[in-house]
């Protein structure tokens, strides 16, 4: 089955127009990203040596092609000075490249003081960004022009956060913290992807980076959590069900996925993998979310990892209300 929706008519497609940027790099959301000059420096070195080597090779192939009766000319078979020259020149060049790369790296590593701090948790297969006020979202919203520091960890396997437009990438390693910082200088929406292979839905572990103006950001932050208090619990739960990625494993229409469908489970009695049974009630659902490994449903792998710290108690209540409505 070929999915043609992804194809665009050629006319619609000036090759690079869609994402902007240069031929090699996507549009940057920061002024003067430290990486870019290093990239172009190396590119220039590569181009130079590639054309030098392949050019000479082509030249020799044509110029000294075998001709009947023509013998190869005698040349010397070693020339120490020449060897030293073509070892030392590349050595100097790579020395420069190393230094440039290192200097830019240090700039990208050392966060300035006064960063806005956001906690990032990666799990199979979604991102959870927790703001200083305790609110969690699955997209990254940041204020413009302010350095932002992400303190990251993972609850299951290794993930990696990549924002091409900001030229930052760092792995999220379970059992420890890692961090990156950046400063976005242009408002807009950018991509955020997971670049460490993490399982079935690795290529769907995506998020958006939304760069707001300073006022918009504060406003967004105030309003974002509103739905939990303004909407009826079941509807808030429905939104949360999307945002926390439950839908990736649990359908609401009865088809089994990685996890069981949650359609009509409330009140039923389920058989567990160890032979016991359990009645699906509020407590069981709460436990399933916070300690999924405690009771494993028969016929499923224990792959759901905990939501401890990623959903608040109130949020769990709304999720339960939502699950109750699935009939």
């Amino acid at each position: 089955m070929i999915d043609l929706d992804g194809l665009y008519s050629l006319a619609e497609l000036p090759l690079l127009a869609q994402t902007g940027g240069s031929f090699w790099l996507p549009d940057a959301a920061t002024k003067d990203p430290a990486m870019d000059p290093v990239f172009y420096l190396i590119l220039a070195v590569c181009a130079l040596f590639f054309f030098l080597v392949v050019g000479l090779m082509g030249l020799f192939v044509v110029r000294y092609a075998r001709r009947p009766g023509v013998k190869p000319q005698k040349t010397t078979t070693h020339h120490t000075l020449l060897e030293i020259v073509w070892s030392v020149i590349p050595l100097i060049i790579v020395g420069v490249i190393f230094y440039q790369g290192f200097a830019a790296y240090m700039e990208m590593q050392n966060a300035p003081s006064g960063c806005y701090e956001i906690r990032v948790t990666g799990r199979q297969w979604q991102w959870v960004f927790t703001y200083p006020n305790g609110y969690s979202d699955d997209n990254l919203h940041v204020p413009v022009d302010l350095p932002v520091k992400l303190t990251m960890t993972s609850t299951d396997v290794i993930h990696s956060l990549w924002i091409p437009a900001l030229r930052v990438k760092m792995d999220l390693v379970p059992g420890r913290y890692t961090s990156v910082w950046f400063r976005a200088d242009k408002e807009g929406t950018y991509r955020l992807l997971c670049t460490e292979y993490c399982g079935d839905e690795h290529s769907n572990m995506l998020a958006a980076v939304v760069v707001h103006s300073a006022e918009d950001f504060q406003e967004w932050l105030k309003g974002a959590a509103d739905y939990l208090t303004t909407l009826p619990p079941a509807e808030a739960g429905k939104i949360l069900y999307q945002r926390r990625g439950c839908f990736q494993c649990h359908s609401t229409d009865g088809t089994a996925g990685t996890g069981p469908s949650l359609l009509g489970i409330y009140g039923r009695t389920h058989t567990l993998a160890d032979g016991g049974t359990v009645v699906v009630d509020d407590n069981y659902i709460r436990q399933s979310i916070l300690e999924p490994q405690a009771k494993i449903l028969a016929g499923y792998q224990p792959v759901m990892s905990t939501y401890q710290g990623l959903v608040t108690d109130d949020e769990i209540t709304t999720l339960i209300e939502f699950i109750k409505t699935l009939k």
Partner: protein
Amino acid sequence: MDHTKTPSAPNSASQADVPLAHVVELRILLTVFAALIMLTAITVAVSYFDFGAFNLSVALGVATIKATLVALYFMHLRYDNAFYATIFVIAVGFLGLFLGITMLDAVEYYPDVQTWQQSTR
């Protein structure tokens, strides 16, 4: 002419009297054994005292002396072609390289593990 020395000069003659290897004297083997047993006794005894950070160095130092004795005499390195000893030392060097850099890194990033452990407690 530019023959580098190797364990066997290629195709050396096959006269029957070329000795294949050195025979180690009995006395030497027995002395080495006695030394090894003594050193073992010493490390065990020493382990009951506490030298703080030196414990590790003492234990490993003694172990290294023992290992050297075994390699030099029991394994004939002292009498054999120096090439064997060289490659053995190189191997140990690579072990050190692997262990050294990995440890250097693990110690460097360990604080990030600790803060995580504290925060989840």
